[in-house]
Structure formats: structure tokens, C-alpha cells
């Protein structure tokens, strides 16, 4: 699996709790204090791609006036998040290390 885009990553983690698309977007914006703002085109595309990859799925929600589709993360989606977090942590660690050492790696 190729790395997730920032938009897809944030939508995916916001769907750990089942939400409809726009609510997920609002949650992402709140969570990132307004840094990550998603246009509806980007949001719609991310939802479709995540669903096609089997990382989220629509869940039946009859309580709401069910015109809005509610999505939830799948088991596969959870696995991808865990992998993604490990990858991001590694990226951050490498960046910090090279900035601190002036570019030298410690493996020589």
C-alpha cells in the first residue's frame, strides 16, 4: 500500500468513530486547529478512494434521516493506520536526526 495522502490519513482516523462525510471533514478541521481544510472535491475523492481500497465502508444508519451516507473504518483500515503511524514516526525521527547532526548519519 502506498502512503496515504494527508487528506486520506485524516479522513481515515476521523472515521474510527462512524460519521457522515461532512462531519468527518469538520472533525479533521477541529482536530488540526484549522490547518487541514478539505475542499468538497478532495473530501469526496478521498471517501471514494478509501472505500474502493476497503479501508472504510458505509454503515447502515437508520437513526439519521438516512440521505447522508455514514462511513466507518474497517479492520483493514485500522491496520493501515498502525502501519502509517510507524512510517510517519520514522520519517519524523530521520528528519530530526539529520537536522541535529548537520546531515551526518550515525551509522559510519
Amino acid at each position, binding site marked *: 500500500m502506498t502512503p496515504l*495522502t494527508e*487528506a486520506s490519513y485524516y479522513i481515515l482516523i476521523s472515521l474510527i468513530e462512524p460519521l457522515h462525510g*461532512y462531519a468527518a471533514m469538520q472533525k479533521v478541521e477541529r482536530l488540526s486547529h484549522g490547518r487541514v*481544510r*478539505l*475542499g468538497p472535491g478532495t473530501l*469526496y*475523492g478521498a471517501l471514494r478512494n478509501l472505500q474502493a481500497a476497503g479501508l472504510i465502508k458505509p454503515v447502515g444508519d437508520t437513526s439519521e434521516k438516512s440521505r447522508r451516507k455514514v462511513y466507518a473504518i474497517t479492520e483493514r483500515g485500522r491496520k493501515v493506520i498502525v502501519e502509517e503511524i510507524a512510517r510517519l514516526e520514522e520519517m519524523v525521527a530521520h528528519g530530526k536526526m539529520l537536522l541535529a547532526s548537520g546531515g551526518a548519519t550515525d551509522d559510519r
Partner: protein
Amino acid sequence: MTDNARSMKRCFRLFWAWQEEREAQWLQQMALRGWSLKEVQGIRYTFERRVPEKVVYRLDFKESATGELEEYLQLYREAGWECVTRLGNWFYFKRPAGAGTEAELYTDNASRLERYRAQLRMMLIAGLPVYLFSVVLYPPVLYPLIVRSSVGGWLRTLHLLVLVVAAIHAVAVGRIVAIIRRLERDPRE
């Protein structure tokens, strides 16, 4: 241009597929002058008399126009974008200028790329018959037919016309490919 009882206005304007920004700007200027877009049919734009308003127009391209249409429009509506009208796969959205929410439909290059790739796919499929006909109608191909008939001159004219359409189409494809290339070269996601 005709004004019917000053409540409706029809304009004929031609915008090519790569001129969507210019088209949106024109619609914004019309809205500022009190003409609100109602319908687009080919090159015919119908406007309605309204209070002059400062709005933002954006055109979106959606590849499959039928599937999930309700969800698509709902998401855009919730994000503050009203779908004014559509022309095939093109959707015309507007929202008040300067509202607090995000002003663009696409906020990263990955999704912009997807949108333009979908547009390119559709253009290539739509253009296929034109290219096919420009070969089929090529006089030497039709030569056995033309020699004995009086339709030769007419076919030649038709072929020329098809060639012009094919040339314009090729320019449009080139422009969209250029946009895709530029996005692909951008190291940002």
C-alpha cells in the same frame, strides 16, 4: 443577447475546456451586475435578474455523472457550495464570496490530479469518433467511392470540417495534459 422583460438574459459565449477559470470569472462578474446563472446549454447561458451579489463560481468535472450523484451534491452543499446547473459532466457551483469555509473545491494536488485525469479520459473517449472520421473521410480512403459520384466535393468539405474539430480537440487535450504534467512535477502532495 436578448432581454426578456428584463428578468432573463441569454448570452452566447464559447469557452474551451481549458478555460474554466475564465468562465468562472465571467460568471462572477455577471453576478456582480445582478445576473445570476440559471442554466447552461452548450454555448448558451441563461441568467436571471437578481440582487447584485459577490459570489465565487467554480466548475467541477465528475466522471460518472449518475453514480452517487446525491451524495456528491450533498457533500458540496454542506461545504457551502450550491449546484446551480450542470452541463453533462460539468457541474457549476457557487457560494458567497468571503464566507468562512474553504474557498476551493480541491485542496491538494493529489485530488486535483485525479480530477484532471478523469477529464482527460473523458475527452479522449469523446474525441475518438472525430479522429476515426478524419481517417475514414480522408479522400484517398474514399477514392473508389468519390471517383464515380458527385458527392466528392461535399465529402472533401466534410473532411475539412472534421479535421478542424480534430485540431481543436488536440489543442484541448494538449492543454489538459500540460496541467497534469505541471501537477505531477509539483513535489507537494
